[in-house]
C-alpha cells in the first residue's frame, strides 16, 4: 500500500494551489477592506481599495508613480547594497575577533540606537540633500541589521568545522569564504530580508528630510494635503516593491539551501 505522495506535482495542482493560497485570500482581504472603508472607517483615514487602485492607475498612466519609484529605488538599491556589504563585512570581522568586538560593540550599539530622523542636519551637512544623503540614510538603516545578524551567524559557526579548517591551515580569507560565509548564510539571509523593507523606509526618511521626488516625497505631499488616497497609493508602491523583492530573495535562497539540505528537511519538517 504505497503512501500517498506528498505534494505531487500534477499539472493543475499548482494552479489550484495558487488560486487557493493567493487569489482567494487576496480577494477576501480586499473585499473586507472595501467593506470597512465603506461602512466603518471614514475613507479619509482608510480609503477604499477601489479608489486606491484608480489612483495608482492614473499615476501609472501619467508616469508620476514610475518616476518617483525610480528615484526611491535608485536610493534604496545603492544604499542597500552598500549597507549589506558593509554590515556583512563588519559582522564577519567582529565575529572573528573577540578583541575588536569587545572594543567596538558598545559604540556600534550606541550608533545603532540613534534615531536617524533626528540627525537630519548632520546628514545634510555631510551628504548634502541629494542622492548621496539618501543612500547614506538607507545604508545606515541596513548596515546594523545585517551586521548584528551576521555577527551572530559567525558566532554560531559549528566549532567542529572551524577546527577542521584551522587544522587544514586555512588562511583567514579562506576561513571567511569557505566556511563562515556559507555557514552564516542563513543569518545573512535574514539580515537581508529584514533590512530591505528598512532600506525602503530609510529612503523615505531621507526623502522626508529633503527631497523633490521619490515615494517619500509623494507620501509627504499627499499627507500634507489630506490626500489619503494618494498617501495610500504611495504606500502601495512601497509594499509592491518590498513584496516582490522578498519573494525573489526567498526563492533564490530556498533554491540554494535546498540543494544540500532538501532530503533531510523534506523528511522531517515540522509541518
Amino acid at each position, binding site marked *: 500500500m504505497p503512501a500517498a505522495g506528498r505534494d505531487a506535482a500534477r499539472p493543475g495542482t499548482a494552479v489550484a494551489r495558487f488560486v487557493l493560497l493567493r487569489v482567494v485570500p487576496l480577494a477576501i482581504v480586499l473585499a473586507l477592506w472595501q467593506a470597512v472603508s465603506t461602512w466603518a472607517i*471614514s475613507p*479619509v*483615514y482608510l480609503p477604499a481599495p477601489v479608489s486606491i487602485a484608480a489612483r495608482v492607475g492614473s499615476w501609472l498612466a501619467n508616469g508620476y508613480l514610475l518616476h518617483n519609484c525610480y528615484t526611491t529605488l535608485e536610493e534604496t538599491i545603492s544604499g542597500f547594497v552598500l549597507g549589506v556589504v558593509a554590515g556583512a563585512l563588519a559582522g564577519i570581522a567582529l565575529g572573528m575577533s573577540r578583541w575588536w568586538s569587545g572594543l567596538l560593540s558598545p559604540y556600534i550599539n550606541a550608533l545603532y540606537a540613534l534615531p536617524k530622523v*533626528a540627525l*537630519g*542636519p*548632520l*546628514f*545634510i*551637512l555631510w551628504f*548634502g*540633500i*541629494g542622492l548621496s544623503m539618501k543612500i547614506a540614510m538607507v545604508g545606515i538603516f541596513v548596515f546594523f541589521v545585517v551586521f548584528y545578524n551576521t555577527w551572530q551567524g559567525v558566532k554560531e559557526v559549528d566549532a567542529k568545522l572551524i577546527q577542521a579548517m584551522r587544522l587544514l591551515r586555512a588562511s583567514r580569507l579562506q576561513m571567511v569564504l569557505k566556511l563562515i560565509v556559507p555557514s552564516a548564510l542563513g543569518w545573512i539571509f535574514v539580515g537581508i530580508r529584514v533590512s530591505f523593507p528598512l532600506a525602503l523606509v530609510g529612503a523615505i526618511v531621507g*526623502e*522626508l*528630510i*529633503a*527631497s*523633490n521626488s521619490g515615494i517619500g*516625497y509623494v507620501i*509627504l*505631499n499627499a*499627507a*500634507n*494635503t*489630506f*490626500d*489619503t488616497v494618494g498617501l495610500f497609493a504611495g504606500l502601495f508602491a512601497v509594499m509592491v516593491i518590498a513584496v516582490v523583492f522578498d519573494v525573489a530573495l526567498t526563492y533564490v535562497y530556498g533554491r540554494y539551501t535546498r540543494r544540500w539540505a532538501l532530503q533531510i528537511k523534506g523528511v522531517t519538517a515540522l509541518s
Partner: protein
Amino acid sequence: GGSNDESGSGNDGGPASVKVVVSTASISYAPLYIAVKQGFFKDQKLTVSITTVSGGGATVPALQSGSAQFGFSSVFHQLDAVQQGQKIVSIAAVNTGEGLDVVVSKKKAAQLGLNANSTLAQKGQALKHLKVGVISTSGEPYYVLSDLARAGGVDPSELNMEAVASSAAITAMKTGQIDAMTIGLPVTTEAIEQAGAQILVSCPAGDLPDLHEAPTETVLASASYVTSHASVTSRFVKAIGQAEAYLKANSDQAAETVRTGYFAKVDKQVFDTAWAEIANVTPAEPTLTAEQLQRTVDFVSRASGKKVKATGDQLLGVVK
C-alpha cells in the same frame, strides 16, 4: 481613541480639562502659550494640556478621534480636510494674514540683483532662479510661492522646490543646497541670523496683499464637539481672546512670557525679530467670520489655480 466626554463635566460652566494639540511648536501660537502662562484658562476653570503633533495631518485625526478637543493649526490644512469631508471647524483666529516669510540667501539675492527696493514682480520673477526649501511642496508654502510667482508672471509649475524637514532647512541653506526657503517662524529668522539670508517677502509685513485680513492660523475643533460642548468651547475662545488682547496691549511682556516659557533656548535676538512679525499678524480678538475665511479660500483657489470645493461658511464654527 479618547472620548469626547472627558470634559463633559465642564459643559455646565464647571471646571473642565481639555487637551490641545499644536501642529508644531511655533511662535505663531503665542496666544495659547500666553493664555496658559497668564492663567486665562484657569480663570475659565479650564485645565489645559498641550501636546505637540507632527503637522496639520496629525491635528485633524487627533480632534476627530477625540484624543484632543482643540487644535492649533493652519486654515490651509483645515481646508484640505474639509474638502475631504471632515467636519472640522475654525473657532478662533490665531493669525490673520500669512505668518510665513520667504527668505533668500544674500549671495543669491546679490546675484539676482534683488534689494530692498525690488518690486513684488521682480521678486516673483526671481523665483525662477531659486531653489526654495519648503516643508511640503503642496499646501501652504506652495500657495504662498505660487502667489508670489504669479505676481512675477512666472508659471507656478516652473517653481523649483525642495521639501526639507524644518530642522534641516538651516543647514541646507548654509551648505548652499537651497537658495531660499519659506518655512514657519522662527526658522526663517534663524536663517537670517545664521545662514546669511535676507527677507525676500514678508507676509506678516503685508507683502502679499492677497492675504490681507485672511485668517491663516486658527483654533480647530470637531464640529460635533463645538455643538455638544458649547460652554467649554466658548470659555476656551474667551481665554484665547484675553491672551490676544494681552499680547496687543503688553507686547514686550508677552514676548518675555512666551520666550522664557517655551522658547528659552532660542537666541533672544532671533526670537524678538520673529516676535515682531508674529505680533503683526496676531488679531486683537479671536472672532471669525465666514467672510474672513472665504478670503483664505479665495486665496487658495487663486494660488493653486484650482476650484476649491469649500466655502468660508463650512470652515466656520459658531461659538456662542
